[in-house]
């Protein structure tokens, strides 16, 4: 019955993020390479797992892409994502709301 429940949630959830659920595991591949499978970080690489609210996550990525926040690689990486992709990443990594 778990599946049925999930299906109800899906129907109620309004769509966009779910519609692209296959995209999220692909998109986070760009993060996992350094930040680890669950975003836990290591070797000085910061954890990105549940460290921010969605809004904070999005603001952080915007600051990186505008070179408003010092970074080694994140400025160069963040400019490769669309705003929709950043929103999916935020939904994945942000603290549960």
């Amino acid at each position: 019955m778990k599946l049925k429940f999930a299906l109800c949630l899906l129907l109620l959830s309004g769509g966009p993020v779910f519609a692209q659920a296959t995209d999220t595991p692909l998109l986070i591949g760009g993060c996992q390479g350094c930040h680890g499978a669950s975003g836990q970080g290591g070797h000085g690489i910061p954890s990105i797992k549940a460290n921010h609210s969605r809004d904070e996550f999005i603001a952080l990525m915007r600051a990186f892409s505008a070179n408003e926040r010092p970074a080694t690689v994140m400025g160069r990486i963040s400019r490769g994502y669309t705003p929709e992709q950043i929103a999916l990443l935020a939904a994945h990594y942000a603290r549960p709301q």
Partner: protein
Amino acid sequence: MTLSRRVFLSAAALPAGLAAPNLARAQAGAGRVVIIGGGFGGASAARFARDNFPALNITLIERSRSFTTCPYGNLVLAGRRDINFITFGYEKLAARGVRVVHQSVVAVDAAAKQVRLADGAQVPYDRLIMSPGIDLRWGSIEGYDEAASERMPHGWVPSLQPISLLRRQLEAMPDGGRFVMVIPDNPFRCPPGPYERISMVADYLKRAKPRSKLIALDAKNGFSKQPLFQDAWAELYPGIIEWRGASNDGRVTRVNGAAMEVETEFGEKLKGDVVNVIPPQMAAKIARDAGLANQSGWCPIKPATLESAQVEGIHVLGDATIAAPMPKSGYVASSHAKHAVACIAASLAGRAPPSATFFNTCYSHVGADYGISIVGVFRPGPNGFAEVEGSGGISPRNAALTAERRKEHRQLEALYADGWYDSITDEMFG
């Protein structure tokens, strides 16, 4: 499984924009996926499929029982890492439910959708992923064959020759000796690799044999992260490294293993106490035999799905592919792998492929606590692949940073390189 069927039918009745991938993948996406090659592409594909698409039956065929990475091989060469640190087994992938078969593939029958193994077994598939890696083009530099590579190691394909052979020769080299490197034209595996190797050999020479020299003879005039490498060489290893490009007679056309001598296009002969020849390359034999490669020796692929442009039903990943401007790097192979698996799962479930975004972050160690990087984000473009405009690029050059920030930046990137290595190898083999 009547419940499953009912749920699937309900899901199928959803409006198109509300497709239910999590459900669909559990119900309708079943299929046999066979992966040939257990390197960065193949191992990542197996793990990603297991984690995200439980309905897929995954078989990974890899002839070796262990995998030694190319990344960090140059640190083993410099004595900064042990070979065991960069060598991994397939046990954990097997424990995660991947059927791991340690056999050589002798033939791929795309029409019958099956793969024949050296022991005669036939492995049927619904979709095939090939991440075969590269072969060296023996003889493309006159005199450079497998026998010569024992005297003049390539250290470029760990399954053919462990980096420890070159390491032993470097250790045996006298102080005041000469290390000669021969570097190929594009395209080749790991574009910044030869230059990280120059850096790591120089790092070792500076510490252990400070009167020695390194001469790099390059068949091209420019290379990956060139300004960063050259800034660092001047800063860290003054007087040790001489790099010669093609227009400065850097192209080596002939080698003599017995004499430990290389000869350039215009006839200059140079002897080395250690000679490291990185020869021209091509897609591995199994890919060429399967009809995946074109006359270039590399495999053309469809950018949206990474399917072979020449043989239906086969997805090709990693170094063997024609995927410029994406480099032939481990991270790109891993990025290819995830996309190919998602495309296969979608196709088996009757859905359109997901949109493609590919990533590359590639660090090079240039010295102790001195790292540099190149980053790229790529999508399918009008002709093949294209880097996302405004993104990517290399670390800032020395002149663009204050002295304090420069030191911090290089230190952080060396540290982050270690983090990258841990993360990506854990993803494959952890």
